[in-house]
């Protein structure tokens, strides 16, 4: 893999991780509120992480566009700099990249002032929706125009990945952190975990549904799966996702009932969520590697 491809993979991972965190933190705020937990105790730290995630999103977008310019021009990164404006202003990919970057910039600006308001929460959600829509339209799903079933499926797919991975990441590493979770009553932690688990399950169903639709739409080349680097990455990705689903299943059917009985059980749920985050990050990295690579020439 050359420098351009590495940069494409790295920037896509950065961008998607930022999006996933922001979706997760948006949901966590709602679940905390619905569980009767005082949000004010969480807000300052959550805001800082949100700013970092949105910042990563903006940076990732800019770097991704430079890497895309180099890939489109078939040149190195230095030679791509003079072509950057042509890419940004003259291609659909460039227009989409700019809009995605703008959406992340708006989220950053909205999270900058301290405190929260209903208006700001809604504006953040709208910006994330615009980001998801734009990013989805930059691939093949956008080929048939902005009002196609393929694009709708892709938007839902990408958003559901944000919900699933965001719920896992923000809950496992932030909300359920041992120092924070002591402020929860037993009822509150149970309610939070139930809301998180239900949303993650719905998201996985949406991912499977929309993904199966896309697979059915583009079917016919699975024979190429074996014997190429591309196929190997894909198989690794499938393995990681299946592992994450298995961990999610364990938490749902074993971890959550145990967490309602003891704080040790809650600790196990947290550890499983943290492990699940690593698997999903690996899957996200593999996905980024796949999209930046040329598939085998025979495709």
């Amino acid at each position, binding site marked *: 893999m050359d420098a351009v491809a590495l940069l494409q993979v790295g920037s896509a991972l950065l961008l998607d991780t930022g999006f996933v965190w922001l979706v997760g933190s948006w949901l966590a705020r709602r679940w905390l509120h619905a569980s009767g937990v005082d949000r004010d105790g969480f807000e300052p730290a959550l805001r800082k992480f949100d700013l970092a995630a949105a910042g990563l999103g903006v940076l990732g977008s800019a770097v991704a566009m430079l890497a*895309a310019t180099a*890939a*489109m*021009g*078939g040149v190195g990164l230095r030679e791509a700099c003079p072509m950057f404006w*042509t*890419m940004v202003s*003259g*291609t*659909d*990919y460039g227009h989409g990249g700019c809009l995605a970057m703008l959406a992340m910039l708006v989220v950053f600006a909205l999270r900058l002032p301290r405190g929260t308001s209903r208006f700001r929460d809604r504006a953040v959600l709208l910006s994330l929706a615009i980001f998801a829509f734009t990013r989805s339209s*930059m*691939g*093949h799903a*956008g*080929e048939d125009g902005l009002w196609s079933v393929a694009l709708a499926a892709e938007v839902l797919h990408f958003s559901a990945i944000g919900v699933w991975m965001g719920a896992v990441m923000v809950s496992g590493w932030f909300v359920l952190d041992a120092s924070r979770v002591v402020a929860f009553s037993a009822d509150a932690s149970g309610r939070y975990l139930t809301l998180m688990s239900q949303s993650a399950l719905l998201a*996985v169903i949406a*991912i*499977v549904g929309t*993904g*199966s639709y*896309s*697979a059915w*739409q*583009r*079917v*016919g*080349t*699975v024979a*190429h*799966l074996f014997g190429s680097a*591309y*196929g190997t990455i*894909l198989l690794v*990705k*499938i393995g990681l*996702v*299946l592992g994450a*689903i*298995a961990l999610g*299943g364990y938490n749902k*059917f074993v971890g959550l009932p145990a967490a309602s009985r003891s704080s040790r059980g809650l600790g196990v749920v947290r550890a499983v969520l943290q492990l699940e985050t690593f698997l999903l990050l690996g899957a996200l990295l593999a*996905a980024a590697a*796949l*999209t930046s690579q*040329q*598939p085998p020439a025979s*495709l």
Partner: protein
Amino acid sequence: MKHLHLLAMTCVLTGAMFASPFAAAHAKLTGSEPAAGATVSPAPKALVLTFNEKIEASFSSVTLKDAGGKDVASAKAHVDAASPAVLRLDVPVLTPGAYTVQWIAVGHDGHRRNGDFTFTVK
């Protein structure tokens, strides 16, 4: 047991689903005038390359070389106004002989593909 079934079904469907990006199409030449390997008479006034998807004009190109490897067309290829998946290259009067068409096509998704084919003017 019901839960296990649900989990197994989810695993199978996810496996099927994550095969989808692998099968994603990229800019591919689906047809051309003159066709690859064709012998034509009279000589074409333009080369018309049709792809399977919309082409980004700024980063796509078509060049025509004669049997000696010399560039024949001085014009730049442009995307057809009526069809965004078609690249056209206006060419001067071609003398009889073999020609090679080299193309670079950047698709809507930013991926770059290239290829070439030959034709003969009788």
